[in-house]
């Protein structure tokens, strides 16, 4: 209800721009969909769309956490490595529990719990270093990025950690099955997104994130416990990485040192394409969802055509990302 209030203010010239700011990411998405349709008739097929959305769900869930972190003026570069280490530990925990618990959902649930817990702990660690240690978020999470990545390489002995095949069979449906034909990852992504939107817009926590990102000092003088709110954003981020990994592990049943490489960049890019400002103070969950889907579609479209040399995939991606944001550029005029 309140969210768009600050924007309606503007003059006619602005009004148009501001409109673009909100509609921009959607417009970019629509254009991409049109491009997809024109390139391949299977693009709009149910299976293709669910494939893309299900794949985007990991990054999407992580990016929703990142939206809170960034809105509050922070940054978390460690999410990709964190995902890898969580996946690795989940697999090890499940494999290790088989002798005691046998094959079945109980093992999987225990693994899931371990994953979420580890995510939370990692978030607490990042958050405490940043808030209590007073070290720049960039540095802390660059450091933990290296630490987590090393850890999973070490645990996997440089190779791949594979989930026991029988447990993997139990767990597989979590990625591949769904409810009424909608795969679970999409459902979970949607739920997290809706939850995130509610938290961002209709809770004190969300408001506090924006306040802190906008002006930390004002937030402090308004009796907001800045450190705790900020800490919470990192914990939330960690837990959401955990949730994303819960959906990732059943897909391939393995984790290695390459798991989650560059996810942080993709997540941050999704957040910013969605209209959240990197400097903090303004965050938009639904924008993030659109941003992440845009990124997912770019990859999909590249695979659906043969016009562009695969060597130039990155260039295509780069151009689309810039264009997507160009469509909402009114924003930075201030």
């Amino acid at each position, binding site marked *: *209800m*309140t969210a768009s*209030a*600050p*924007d*309606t*203010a*503007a*003059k*006619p*010239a*602005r*009004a148009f721009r501001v409109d673009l700011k909100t509609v921009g990411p959607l417009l970019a998405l629509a254009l991409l969909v049109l491009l997809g349709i024109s390139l391949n008739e299977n693009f709009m097929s149910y299976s293709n769309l669910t494939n893309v959305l299900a794949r985007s769900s990991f990054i999407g869930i992580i990016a929703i956490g990142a939206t809170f972190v960034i809105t509050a003026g922070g940054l978390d570069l460690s999410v990709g490595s964190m995902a890898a280490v969580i996946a690795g530990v989940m697999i090890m925990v499940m494999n290790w529990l088989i002798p005691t618990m046998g094959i079945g959902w109980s093992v999987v649930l225990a693994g899931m719990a371990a994953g979420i817990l580890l995510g939370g702990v990692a978030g607490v660690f990042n958050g405490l270093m940043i808030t209590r240690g007073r070290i720049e978020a960039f540095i802390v999470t660059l450091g933990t990025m290296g630490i987590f990545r090393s850890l999973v390489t070490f645990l996997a002995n440089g190779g791949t950690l594979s989930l026991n095949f029988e447990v993997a069979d139990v767990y597989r449906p979590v990625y591949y099955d769904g409810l009424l034909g909608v795969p679970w990852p999409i459902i979970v992504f949607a739920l997290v997104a809706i939850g995130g939107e*509610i938290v961002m*817009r*209709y*809770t*004190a926590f969300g*408001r*506090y994130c*924006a*306040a802190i990102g*906008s*002006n930390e*000092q*004002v*937030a*402090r*003088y*308004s*009796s*907001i*416990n800045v450190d705790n709110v900020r800490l919470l954003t990192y914990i939330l981020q960690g837990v959401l990485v955990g949730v994303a990994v819960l959906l990732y592990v059943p897909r391939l049943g393995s984790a290695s040192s390459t798991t989650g490489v560059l996810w942080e960049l993709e997540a941050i890019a999704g957040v910013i394409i969605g209209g959240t400002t990197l400097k903090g*103070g*303004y965050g938009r969950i639904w924008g993030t969802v659109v941003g992440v889907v845009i990124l997912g579609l770019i990859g999909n479209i590249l695979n659906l055509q043969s016009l562009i040399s695969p060597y130039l995939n990155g260039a295509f991606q780069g151009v689309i990302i810039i264009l997507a944001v160009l469509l909402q550029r009114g924003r930075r005029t*201030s």
Partner: protein
Amino acid sequence: MSSAEGTPAPIILSANRISKSFGEIPVLFSVDFDICPGEVHAIIGENGAGKSTLIKILSGIEQPTSGSISYDGQTVVLPPNGAAEAMGIVLIHQEQNLAEHLTVSESIFLGREIKRFGFLDLRQMRARARAFMEMLHVHVDPDARINTLSVADKQMVEIAKAISRDARVLIMDEPTAVLSVAETQTLFEQIRRLTARGVAVIFISHKLDEIMELANRVTVLRDGQLIATVGTEALTPDSIAQMMVGRELSNLYPPKHEPDVDAPVVLAVHNLVAKGVRDISFDLRKGEILGFAGLIGSGRTAVAEAVVGLNHRSGGDITLNGKPAHFARVAQSVDAGLAYMTKDRKGKGLLLNMGLRPNLTLLTLNKHLKFGFLDGSSEARALERAVRRFDIRARDAAVAVGRLSGGNQQKLMLGKTMESEPDIIIMDEPTRGIDVGTKQQIYHIIAALAAEGKSIILISSEMQEVIGLSHRVVVMREGRLAGVLEGAEITESEIMRYAAGIKQSEHHDRISA
């Protein structure tokens, strides 16, 4: 320039039938304005009347929607973004406009650095910065970073910056809002020195006595309309106020209701020591308005911030309603019914990029929860209340707070603080930048609060305000308590004597002994 003294001085800068709209919202309607060399031309008007907008147009920061600007008799389009400075038109913004990371000397010379062989002449800039600061009697190291300065010192840096530019037209938007009497006098000396040299000065202030003292002519704006331009000789503070507000202003200060002699002490501070505060003790009784006076940097703000838990307290005891209180964080003091309203509305008070509503409720969001979620309609009701109570005028209710006029920002901040319904309110420069009409309203609100049994600490650099409202006045000097005045002792000269260190309180000696 040198021919300033003579008879009909030529007009140096004029605005001709200037109108301005932000989007569809008109702010100025066909306003005429002019200024001559050597003259001080004041602009007055209610909050949101369009004063800042007018002078922004006169300095090129904003472009008029219609109408024209003449400079030296030529119709000109002023270049944007302060580039008009190169033409001799210098503006001190109402909202302080300094980069927090830079040093004082870097700020003063920003955009017009002194160079030698293409490189910055750091030594000369530092020396000249120091000279400017000394000229203004400010004790600030030219190498100090802006973010370590108090609001008032920042204002003095702004003034030094403006003076350092070779202005032909110097425009000052409420430069004295955060200055105390002594600093204001220093500023006036400088203004007189400049006008004597033929500089034209446009001066905005809500302090009518300052206008009377300084200005040659006064232009009154109301709701974006030009009401009149009159020579100061023909005016009294009352008549100005009437032109501004459009009605008679009687009794700026409400009658004082002395609190009961045996009213309980609600807040007692003993031997408080903190950053910038040395051994301060005072009591606040129920229903009392306790004024805090002192020069810039005397530590009044520091006391308040240490009491409410915004700054670390390194010693001393605080007793709230007879019970010892230790506020480690502001939230605790707010919960205990003790609220502090900062004087730094831009840096500490308001989220400039957000709307009125989130700003108003930020301190008290918990009151607007329904089943744990924010209740937009409850927030909207709060805003309605605050708008009515404090006469917050936003021509567009959804505007980002940063675009409100300065005075309306201040009123919103008052509303925000009062939202927490505190029993004890520490107000730091509560009427900073507020027009006389609203000031009167706010004074009545303060008095009414006291009469209801709330207690108020009023930190103000406006001597009249302290005198007019306070039951007792604490005067601070260099982080110490210089004296406490009561009843008939509360006079301007007495306060000044303590503040300047000419007189020392025996009371204080007793405490520190």
